[in-house]
């Protein structure tokens, strides 16, 4: 198994409070992995630690290269796109500007232009609103914009933090369908952190369960989905 992302002995801290305790897991290239957990379990912290947005110790390797000591923007330039919690939309800029920003580190102008077109194909509603200020879009539309912006980087790895948050179920279904498509067609490895375990497990190949800063379970999505405890705690049956 070629591990694209390898995390070992990860501890993360908010001030004096330790949020992650010796976290370990690996992502296979080309896979969709989901990290499940309750509120406060450390899911968001994990993603933030990968992008060095929170103080941490331990070893994180991306395609063999160590990420420690690198700034967030440099980690991003290695090909890791992060769709943060709350989407992080540039609310005062237009939809199209948001997409352009996703590709701001790329040199190939023509490629960027054609990619923007592809994003409009994936998400037609964005094309409709492409001159609108991003802050005026609905929650679901902003989420799509955030995903599209991340894709503009042409990332090798995409991290998504609770993409279903605050969105209507139908919209979430659509979004996850598109994520699946992107994973298969554009060969983007995906790590999606979710509270909505049902949909996440349908989309993913691999799953991990995190509780109070530690991985407590790991396996294929099917295994985890069938697991008695997971079903009781996260799937409600």
């Amino acid at each position: 198994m070629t591990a694209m992302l390898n995390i070992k002995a990860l501890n993360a801290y908010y001030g004096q409070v330790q949020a992650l305790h010796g976290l370990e897991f690996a992502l296979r290239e080309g896979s969709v992995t989901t990290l499940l957990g309750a509120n406060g379990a450390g899911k968001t912290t994990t993603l933030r630690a990968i992008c060095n947005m929170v103080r941490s110790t331990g070893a994180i390797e991306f395609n063999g290269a160590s990420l420690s000591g690198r700034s967030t923007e440099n980690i991003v330039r290695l090909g890791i796109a992060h769709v943060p919690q709350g989407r992080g939309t540039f609310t005062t800029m237009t939809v199209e500007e948001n997409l352009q920003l996703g590709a701001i580190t790329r040199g190939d102008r023509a490629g960027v232009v054609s990619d923007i077109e592809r994003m409009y194909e994936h998400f037609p509603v964005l094309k409709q609103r492409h001159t609108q200020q991003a802050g005026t879009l609905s929650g679901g539309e902003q989420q799509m914009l955030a995903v599209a912006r991340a894709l503009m980087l042409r990332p090798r790895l995409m991290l998504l933090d609770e993409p279903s948050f605050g969105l209507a179920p139908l919209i979430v279904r659509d979004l996850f369908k598109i994520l699946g498509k992107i994973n298969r067609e554009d060969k983007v490895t995906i790590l999606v952190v979710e509270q909505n375990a049902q949909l996440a497990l349908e989309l993913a190949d691999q799953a991990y369960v995190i509780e109070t800063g530690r991985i407590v379970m790991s396996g294929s999505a099917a295994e985890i989905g069938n697991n008695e405890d997971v079903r009781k705690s996260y799937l409600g049956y």
Partner: protein
Amino acid sequence: MTAVQEAVTEAPAVEAVPKRAMTLGTGSSLIMLALLIMAPLFVKNFIIFQLTMLLIYGLAVLALNILTGGSGQFSLGQSAFYAVGAYTSAILIEHAGMNYALTLPIAGVICFAFGFLFGQPALRLSGVYLALATFALATAMPQLLKLGYFEHWTGGVQGLVVTKPDAPFGLPISQDMWLYYFTLVITIAIYIFSVNLLKSRSGRAFMAIRDNEIAASAMGIDVALYKTLAFGVSAGITGVAGGLGAIAVQFVAPDGYTITLAISLFLGMVVGGVGWLPGSIVGSAFIIFVPNIAEGISKGLSGAVFGVLLFLVIFLVPHGARQVAMVAQHLFGKLKKR
């Protein structure tokens, strides 16, 4: 011009100082008190005068600390309140023959009203906008004091000379020493009042407003009332300081209360540690003594030296004297454990 939504996730402009950290512990307080009581016994009159000014500016910085560190409102206009307090005392002493001690509560009340009134239009402003408004107030004040209309009272550009009071009951101490102890008593009283104010319900309201105004209002806090109250209290204390200043310096004149004073008080607050009341005296010491030190180092470049010293302070302790105190407390705690 569409309105844009922004989740308030960024840190508040004025950082919160945890309540128990807002004052000194009992031990340090007693030591401080002892030092303050004994200091003038060993030095010459001029130094005593400087110590008196130390307390007076300390009060003014304290007032600013309540306003900014407590309720989160910026003010670059404290010099205006200081001036009003100073002139109130001076006019009452010289034109109405009032006893100097009585002028102080009057100065305080007048400035409280002034601050409270100023707080009203300031309600809709915050951050840089409020800074600008208070700045306007500070620049206007010297000009207003020079106006022909008021010259009969204010003495116009030349100002007023204020008679220095003697020690009462024929006590065998110098005027300077008497004034020092008089000021000290007032300072301690105001300090205790301020500490209690911040611990009280009003204080909690101030701090709630500082940390997140919208949430505070949603919790039922009368934001308008508390914000103007904070301005009023701050102005009132500054006014008392101004009155004491007039008596100590024996002189009031418009150009003694310029924007430079307001900026100095601001710097004093930052150096002392925003929101940390005991730091006010450290800040006061900084603004009184460091400019002199700077001039001593280089007459031609005194401004530059001052700037460099200020930078040194903020690089080493960005959170001001409070940071030093916290480190000291930490080390002390470690020593006790051994």
